[in-house]
Each structure stands twice: as structure tokens, then as C-alpha cells.
């Protein structure tokens, strides 16, 4: 694979891994949702993200051109080969944490996919166009819950407040531009992630304000996920997600 191809592969892998890991996290709620409607909603969002992950990873495999398909990329890589943001691998914890994680991600995901609609690459454009329609619903729902819980009862307010502060330090990584991002932006395949920061903060502030919550103050930001440096939590996610392929290599349905 040429150097150009390697960077492009890396870029698409990041897009796919974010969707895949968050989807896996949300799927943990299956059968455990606080109410039936939320159980369904949570797993519907997980399913959308899984579909999107499949499209991105299949495409990454084509770019890499070594014969790996979406399944191989999902099931036969170890933690250091995953390129997802640290935010999406954070634990579900209580419902407020799950919602805060989703809200931060959805607000960013929406802006990102919107920006990628003008990518110079047809594959990136098509997958973004398809995904954006689904993510609009995700953002609607997670914003709605931030408001309901934040502007709810004392207990739900306190929990939502804790969650949005606890996860804040994982939001910086979304807007970081490393060598891969810079090259992708120069080739007009990717977009300027830093430019998403202001509209993201506007959207987040507006929703938090409506939810009677305070926007967390600037703080030191944790990073590393995009380079494959993860928390131990990702290992547990993969141990479950990849169990079948680890126990029975090559098994197929």
C-alpha cells in the first residue's frame, strides 16, 4: 500500500472504529434499559452505528487492499490496532453517563458527517450521506434526554451534572488534528476537525443551558485513542465482542 493509501486507510478506520465501539457499548444495554422504550431506542441506535461501522470498515479494507473485509477488521485486531476516540469506550455507568457520552458524540458526529459530504472521495461522501440521516435522529434523542434528566428532579439533575463533567476531558480528542487528519484535509478527503469545535460548543452549550446544566470549564484533555493508545476498558469490550473468533478462529454463520 502506498503512503497515500496508508493514511487514507487509517482515516477511514477511525471513522469505522468510533461507530463499532460505541455500538458495542450501547448493545450492553440490551435487555437492561430503564424502560422498554429506551431499551429499544438504545439498541436501535446501536444497530444504526453497527451498520455504519460495517460500511466504513468494508471500505477501509478495500483501501488497504490486502483482502481484509469488515469482519476481519472488527474481529481480528487487538486493542492497539483500534483507532476509536477514548470517549466511545468509556463505561456505560449510570444512564446519565450513557446519555452524556452519546450526546457529546452525536453532536460531533453530526457535524463531522455534514462536513464529509463535500469530501473529494466518492466513497466517503456516500457513506456520510447515508449515515447523516440516521445520526440526525440520534442527536435529537440524546439532546432530549440531557434536557429531561438535567431539568428533571434533583437526583437526575445531580447525576447528569456529574456525567457531563466526568466525560468532558474526553471531548478534546474529537477536534485534534494529527498528521493523518492534516493530510486528509489537504487532499480534501477529510475535513478540518478544529473548525467543528465552535459549532459543537454552541450546540452543546445551548442544550446544557436548556437542561439547567453548566458547561464544564476548560481543562486538560485526555488523548491517544486515535493513535491506538487506549484505556484498559477497550480490552474488556474486545474480549466480549471478539470471543467467538478467538475461541473458534474462522467460524462463520
Amino acid at each position: 500500500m502506498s503512503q497515500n493509501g496508508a493514511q487514507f486507510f487509517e482515516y477511514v478506520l477511525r471513522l469505522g472504529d468510533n461507530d463499532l465501539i460505541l455500538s458495542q457499548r450501547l448493545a450492553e444495554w440490551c435487555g437492561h434499559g430503564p424502560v422498554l422504550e429506551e431499551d429499544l431506542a438504545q439498541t436501535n441506535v446501536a444497530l444504526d452505528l453497527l451498520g455504519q461501522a460495517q460500511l466504513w470498515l468494508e471500505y477501509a479494507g478495500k483501501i488497504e487492499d490486502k483482502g481484509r473485509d469488515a469482519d476481519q477488521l472488527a474481529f481480528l485486531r487487538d486493542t492497539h490496532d483500534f483507532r476509536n476516540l477514548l470517549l466511545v469506550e468509556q463505561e456505560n455507568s449510570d444512564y446519565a453517563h450513557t446519555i452524556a457520552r452519546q450526546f457529546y458524540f452525536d453532536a460531533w458526529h453530526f457535524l463531522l458527517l455534514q462536513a464529509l459530504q463535500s469530501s473529494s472521495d466518492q466513497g466517503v461522501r456516500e457513506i456520510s450521506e447515508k449515515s447523516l440521516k440516521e445520526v440526525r435522529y440520534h442527536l435529537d434523542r440524546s439532546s432530549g434526554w440531557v434536557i429531561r434528566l438535567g431539568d428533571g428532579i434533583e437526583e437526575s439533575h445531580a447525576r447528569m451534572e456529574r456525567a457531563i463533567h466526568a466525560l468532558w476531558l474526553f471531548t478534546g480528542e474529537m477536534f485534534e488534528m494529527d498528521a493523518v487528519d492534516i493530510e486528509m484535509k489537504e487532499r480534501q478527503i477529510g475535513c478540518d476537525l478544529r473548525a467543528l469545535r465552535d459549532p459543537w460548543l454552541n450546540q452543546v452549550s445551548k442544550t446544557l443551558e436548556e437542561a439547567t446544566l453548566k458547561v464544564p470549564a476548560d481543562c486538560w484533555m485526555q488523548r491517544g485513542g486515535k493513535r491506538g493508545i487506549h484505556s484498559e476498558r477497550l480490552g474488556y469490550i474486545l474480549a466480549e465482542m471478539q470471543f467467538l473468533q478467538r475461541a473458534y478462529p474462522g467460524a462463520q454463520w
Partner: protein
Amino acid sequence: MVTTPNAKRQNLSRHSPAEAGRRRTRNADIWSWLEEIMDPEIPVLSICDLGIVRDVHWDGAEAVVTITPTYSGCPAMAVITDEIRASLQKRGIARFRIETQLSPAWTTDWLSEKGRERLREYGIAPPRPKSSGPIACPHCGSPSTHLVSQFGSTACKAIYVCDSCREPFDYFKCH
């Protein structure tokens, strides 16, 4: 992957008028067979009513059926692909391929009128833009209904409740 109408015309014009005629007939046949394949999760809608089948054409001696997913994670797509395959094989089409096309992204605007009517009869409120007024209850017709959740039993449906007859119902949401 995407075939433009021009390319299709050129495909036909390579053949004699009689051969072109036969191919058109076969295209119509294939469309009618696909019309018999129902969505596994909403068994009153055919995959043509849903707008999943985007195109049928011939690439030389090979039939090409182009489909598009409704939602990217819709698990019905694998079943639908299997059923298309089985249907073509059963009718003796020896050479064919099924292609997936992502763009333009599927929209509920592609739902046929017949499909919308069948949804309503089945108890699912058909999609309509927000600007065109409230979602009417498919059971009693009352316009007085409210949203319970944007996410229902499948990715394409939301859960509503009727304030008049108090029945819950699915709404096929606009996409």
C-alpha cells in the same frame, strides 16, 4: 456501480431490435418477480413498494439487480438479498448479480402509494412530513396522537399513542 440511463440505452442499442424487445420483457418479468418478495419485517410491503429495488438491467448476458438499504444497519437486507437470489434462480436466470448502491440514500419518498395504503391497513401510520399536520391514528383515524419514542420495534418505525382510542401504534417515520 451506478448505471446512468444513457449507459442503459447504449446497452440495449448494442442488440438487434428483437433482442432488445426480449430483454425489455425479461426486465418486466424480473420486476414482477421482485414485486412478490415481501419485506421480512413488514410482510405487507414488497421490496419494490419500499423503494429498495433501484434498478434492473442487463450487462451482456448477466442480469443486474441494484438495491439500496433502508437503514445502514437494517438486518433485513441479508434476508432480502437471499430471497432475490432464490427468486431469480427459481425462474432459471443463470447469470445475475445483486449490487448495493448507497447514493442517493434511501428515502421514504420512494414508498409507493400502494405501499402507503397497505401500511395503513396493516396498522402502521405511513410517513408524512411534519409540516403536513398531525400523524393520524391508523386504527380510528383520529388526528389526536402523540409520540412516545422515535425508536420502535425496527429502525424505520417510531412509537405513537392515539389520544382518542388510546391504542398504541407504529409510525413509519420520515427518512
